[in-house]
Structures are given as structure tokens and as C-alpha cells.
């Protein structure tokens, strides 16, 4: 789509301004940051950003009734959505960050603490190569094994069929997932320079 209506879902915690800066720089004019049902229902595509602890994020989503609103838009109306970082982890069944907490359960799996090998620091912070195998719509404009910026202590443990990209941190770390219209990336495309901007472009072009 050339100029989709984009809504960044605002659930209180998260670097919403960073995400909107990146998308703005690509020239998309119909961009809103909102938690209102009427605005979200109008959108062609949704972004679920995230910088936060899982519990705080999941609680905030429910407090604002966003879980119900998003279920309707994403599962029933099949709108494309991209979850970023903890926004991707929210797609999971549950997370083990500071206790066991329920996610949106759109993509079956559990968010677990990274158990690093010796000499590997956690959180996993920095630029890492992302390996993608197939021509998934969100990676089409990127060169193979592009660098993306990661910053997380927990990773999405799910079935291989949902994984469309991963990175190597001594262990395999899920970098991107997809199930039909639902996409998630563990890294921060809004903070991954041109690689990240290309990913946004591919995603919006694909819908």
C-alpha cells in the first residue's frame, strides 16, 4: 500500500516517539499514536511498539482494554500488525519475566530468560546479524544478514514454523516471527538505521 493509515498503539510504556520519528522520516503522513478504539479501528496497519517489562506492558494493555480491541482488529478483521521488542513478546502465550504473565496468545510460545553461554552478557545489547531464509515480506528490501539493534534479556521460545529470522548469541535467539498477518521483531527497527527503515518500508509495501 502506498500511503496506509498507520496507528502506533500507545499503551503507556514504550518509545512511541522513536517509532513515529522513524516512520515519519519515510514520508508516511497518515500516522497516529493512539489507544482509542475509534482511531485503531480506522487503521490499515498497526504497530505495537515496546520498551518495558512484560508485566507492566501486559497490564497496561488490559487496563486500556486494548487486548479486546486488538483481538477484534487483528484476529477477526485480519489487519496486519508488527510487534517490536516487548511488543513482539506480547504476541506470545505467556512470559516468564518476573513471574508468569499472560500475553495476547496470538502466536503460541513462551517468553523465557536468555540463558547465555559463558562470557556472554545479558541483556543482549547491540548490533547483530539477522539471518532470514525465505523472502518474508518484512525483509524484502534488506540485504541478507543485515545488522539490527537488539536490547533484551528475554527471548520468544516458539515453534520453528513461526520463526522468520534469528540471530546468533552463542545460542539461537528468535529475531522475527510471523503467523499470517501477525509479525513480530525482537530487535528495534526504529533504532537500526537504514536496515530498520528498509524493514518498515517493506512491511508497509507488503500490505
Amino acid at each position, binding site marked *: 500500500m502506498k500511503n496506509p493509515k498507520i496507528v502506533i498503539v500507545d499503551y*503507556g*510504556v*514504550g*518509545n512511541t*516517539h*522513536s517509532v513515529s*520519528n*522513524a516512520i515519519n*522520516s*519515510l514520508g508516511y503522513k497518515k500516522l497516529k499514536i493512539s489507544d482509542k478504539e475509534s482511531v485503531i479501528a480506522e487503521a490499515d496497519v498497526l504497530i505495537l511498539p515496546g*520498551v*518495558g*517489562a*512484560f*508485566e*507492566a506492558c501486559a497490564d497496561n494493555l488490559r487496563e486500556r482494554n486494548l487486548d479486546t480491541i486488538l483481538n477484534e482488529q487483528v484476529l477477526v478483521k485480519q489487519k496486519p500488525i508488527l510487534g517490536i521488542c*516487548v511488543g513482539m513478546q506480547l504476541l506470545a502465550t505467556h512470559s516468564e*519475566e*518476573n513471574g508468569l504473565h499472560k500475553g495476547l496468545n496470538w502466536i503460541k510460545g513462551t517468553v523465557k530468560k536468555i540463558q547465555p553461554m559463558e*562470557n556472554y*552478557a*545479558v*541483556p*543482549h*545489547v*547491540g*548490533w*547483530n*546479524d539477522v*539471518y532470514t*531464509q*525465505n523472502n518474508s515480506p518484512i525483509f524484502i*528490501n534488506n540485504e541478507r544478514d*543485515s*545488522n539490527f*539493534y537488539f*536490547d*533484551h*534479556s528475554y527471548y520468544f521460545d516458539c515453534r*520453528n*514454523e513461526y*520463526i*522468520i529470522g*534469528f*540471530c*546468533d*548469541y*552463542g545460542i*539461537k535467539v528468535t529475531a522475527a516471527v510471523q503467523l499470517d498477518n501477525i509479525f513480530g521483531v525482537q530487535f*528495534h527497527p*526504529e*533504532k*537500526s*538505521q*537504514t*536496515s*530498520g*527503515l*528498509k524493514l518498515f*518500508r517493506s512491511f508497509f509495501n507488503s500490505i
Partner: protein
Amino acid sequence: MDLNYFEAFLIQSDMLKKRVAATIIVKDGIVVQSINFSKYLPVGKPAIAIEFLNQWGIDEIILLDISTARNNQDPDYLMIRKASEKCFVPLTVGGGVSNIEHIKQLMHCGADKISLNHAAIYQPELITKASHIFGDQCIVVSIDAIKTREGYRVYDYLTKKALKIIPKDLAIKAVELGAGEILINSVDRDGTYIGYDLQLINSICELVSIPVICSGGAKNANDFVDVFKNTNVSAASAANFFHFTEHSVNTTKANISNHTLVRLETHASYRENHFDDTLRLIKKADEELEKLLYVRIEKEII
């Protein structure tokens, strides 16, 4: 995805790059060159500095506002909002952050990570509170260290005094309380161009399991190579020397990349260029420059 594809790649190890970061010290809305935490020379506007560093391929930017706490103000949200507009790499913001509301507002203005310095010393419970809300990866504890006769001590930049606390003890405590990264700054080396304080940096790296960023003393790429080789830091930061030459980040990375894995994704890579002993760029031969006149470089359209 196909399982074999995964396995094939795991033979390569450690694809995480060392980060080359830039520290931007802001005083009353203006970027300054800082020398020993006491002398400050004006450089320019934060938004411009960030835009350039960003284009030159910096991996991360750390913006520290040293006037906020001194003037007893809230963080300068408007300045951060403007500064972050063209920042497409992670932006850590610090300076006078002393409660959850500050962090929330800064995150809404374009910060990606928050640096706690004074708060980490005087109200450490904020580290735990903040990491429970924003995640541990969001909270960077910044420690200013000074060499005294008794060894390294934590330095209070507001009272300009060395405290009794030992930097490594504060680092260990910060990790226990939920910090996601440690930023270790050498007060003695700040603005001196004599290289990173490897002893200080090692004293922290050896004891913590979270990523460590070092700063203070870098003159050129050799200092980055040195610190990446001799310590376990995840990132090294420089302030002053990045501001004063065109494409400073690109040329620095070109030199570092001969020794350490760093991210190289800018169009101007300088990998074919030559540098003198102090790592200043050597001019290309006239015939070569002549040819370059007619080379057309298409602007990349994303």
C-alpha cells in the same frame, strides 16, 4: 524455518558487534566539549550533532545533560524531543533523572534508554523500580570514577568531590538492583586524549555480567582497538574527537574494523583510504581525485 539452516549458521560464533558510541554532553541546551568535568567549551546544537553522528554511522548516542540537576530542574523534554527527531540509532538520555515520571516523559520524547548517575548513588531503589516498569535493558547506571590516593572512587559531579564509594562496588550493587548496562566514565581522562583507563574498565568488566560501556580519554581509533582488545567492554564511547572532523565516525570505524568486528553500513566506508600515524586521513593522489569528479553517486532511496 528449516532446522538445518539454523544449525549451519551456529558454527560461526559471536556475531554481536562491538559498539562505537558517542557521548554528547549538553549544558544549558548546548553541546559542550568537556575537559576533566570542569572546563566546558561550546560545540553546537544537540539536534545537529545527533543528525551528523547518525549519518556517519554511529552505533549509539548517549546524551547527558549536566545542567538539569545543577539547576534543580526537570529534564529538558523539548530539547530531547527535537534532538531525537533524526536519531535512528539508540539514544540513551541522562542528567537529573530522579523519578519514574521523568523516565516516562523522556521515553515519550524519543529516549530509548535512561542513564541514572546521581540517583544510582543517592536513591538506588529507583533502579529497581524503573527496571520493573521499563525492563532492565532500559536502565543504564552511569558511574563517574576518579583516581585518588586510596584507589578509584566514585565522583559526585555536582559537589565535585570524590565519595567513599568504590566504583566496582557501586557497579555490583547496580546489577543486583536490576540495571541493564553500566556506563563507566573516567573523570581523570575526560577530554585529555590520553586513551581509556584500562585498569578502571577491567575492574568493572571482570565483576559484572551485564554489558559495560566505557568513556573518557579516546583520541582516535587506536584507543578503541586497544580497549576492545584488552577489556571485555561491549561498547566504547567518545565525545570530543567525534565532533571536530568530518566523517569522524566512518574513518574511525574503518580503522577499528581491521582488528575488531564492528558494524559498517555507511556508503562512505573509507576502507580503501590510507591514514597517517595519528590516523588522520591522507589525501588521495590528484589523478584519483580527478577521476572521482566524474563518479556519480546515487542517493540511496529507502
